[in-house]
């Protein structure tokens, strides 16, 4: 079980990945029996469903489950190293990003609150003790070796310090683990 870098010595602490300039299309493992079934339809792929839990700053990998399903296309795999936000990357054995999934930070410590009547505004409220689970699905490819999670750190000072929704700094790697083969 992998844990976030802040809280576990078991996780492999490495430098934040610096993506190379060229993108690489990941070659998915095709399901042999069904791949030829319908040529007009996209070929089914193998995917790895990764389930995480979070509480406070801690993020843990709960499970890796291989599934025959299609995965949406990757978000840009280059030019993002100074961006803020939250994303997951699938990497090869040379640390090259094969697939990237940009996410609305699933480890937020606030909540979106919706109006009761149409026309009123959506708003947000701090919810410092939020905890929960989230899921990332990546292609299960021959070349995919590791998965990383990257997240921007929130401000440490000021009236809204600690709110991850308002984090403004470039994201840094918070977790890395090997995919189950």
């Amino acid at each position, binding site marked *: 079980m992998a844990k976030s870098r802040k809280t576990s010595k078991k996780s492999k602490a490495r430098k934040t990945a610096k993506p190379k300039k060229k993108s690489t299309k990941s070659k998915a493992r095709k399901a042999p029996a069904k791949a030829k079934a319908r040529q*007009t339809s*996209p070929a089914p792929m193998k995917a790895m469903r990764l389930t995480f839990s979070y509480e406070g700053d801690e993020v843990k990998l709960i499970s890796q489950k291989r599934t*025959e*399903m299609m995965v949406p*296309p990757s978000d840009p795999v280059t030019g993002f190293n100074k961006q803020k936000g939250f994303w997951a990357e699938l990497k090869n054995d040379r640390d090259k990003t094969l697939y990237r999934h940009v996410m609305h930070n699933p480890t937020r410590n606030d909540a979106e609150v*919706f*109006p009761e009547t149409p026309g009123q505004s*959506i708003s947000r*409220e701090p919810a410092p003790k939020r905890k*929960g689970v989230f899921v990332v699905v990546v292609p299960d490819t021959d070349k995919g070796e590791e998965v990383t999670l990257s997240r921007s750190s929130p401000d440490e000072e000021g009236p809204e310090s600690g709110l991850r929704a308002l984090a403004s700094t470039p994201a840094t790697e918070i977790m890395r683990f090997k995919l189950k083969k």
Partner: protein
Amino acid sequence: MGTSDGQVLGPTKIVDAGPPEKRWNIVIVSEGYRSDELTQFAVDAQQFADALLAAAPFDRLRPAINIYRIDVTSKESGAKDPKKCGGTGAKPRTYFDASFCTNKIRRLLVAKNSRVLKVVDKHVPQWHVAFLSVNSPISGGSGGSVATFSKAPGSVEIAIHEMGHSAFGLADEYEYYSNCAESGHNKHSGSEPSQPNITTNKNRATTKWRSMIQAATPVPTTKNADCAHCDPQPSPVAVGTIGLFEGADYYHCNVYRPEFDCRMRNLHKPFCGVCQQVIVKKLTPFLP
């Protein structure tokens, strides 16, 4: 409490576009429905599916999308409604223990999501998006890997907005955090956001959605004259014009959204052109 308070009966495919391993699969799970109320859940889930598939751009992506409902009974109806948030104090025995007043926020409706995911994983292992439909008329909901909504009017709007976050990585396009009277949200000072529908780059030639901005559209398209407040000006361009509109991502200035309005900014509005393009790009491979 919990799984002893009900039973998982199983999935039913209510929108069938093909085999689940080749399509994009949405799952709607029932919470707080007694066994004699599951007929109502079937109606509620179908209404939700119809509303979702009527919303652009999902209306033209129908052949890519399967929708399942998973019938789960609860011993009692509704969700917990704690008095400390002004609720009724009701504590119905339900399968996923859904409760309003999570983190003392009245309308933050959250269930035991790990339990929901276990059920969804087991019955529709190819799922891409999971919703929990809570049998309560009280307004509330929450986002994340399990988007939760009640039966209050407008709940489908909440669910689609949350799906914009959870399935497509879209950012909020509103320009405040809690309201427009707050301080501290004048200028976005951060790095370029990774989300596809907001940007700090106001250069027409290099900004994220540059290919969708017409040559005749001014850039920036709106500028907030007073960064201490939300921008009160009406749109200076026709509805549907894609440009760079100042104010998004919880800040009044120095960050831009693609259209004057969008479902990621206000409920009951359609997704803007850029958000629609993101969704279409993500779902096109699932088309037959």
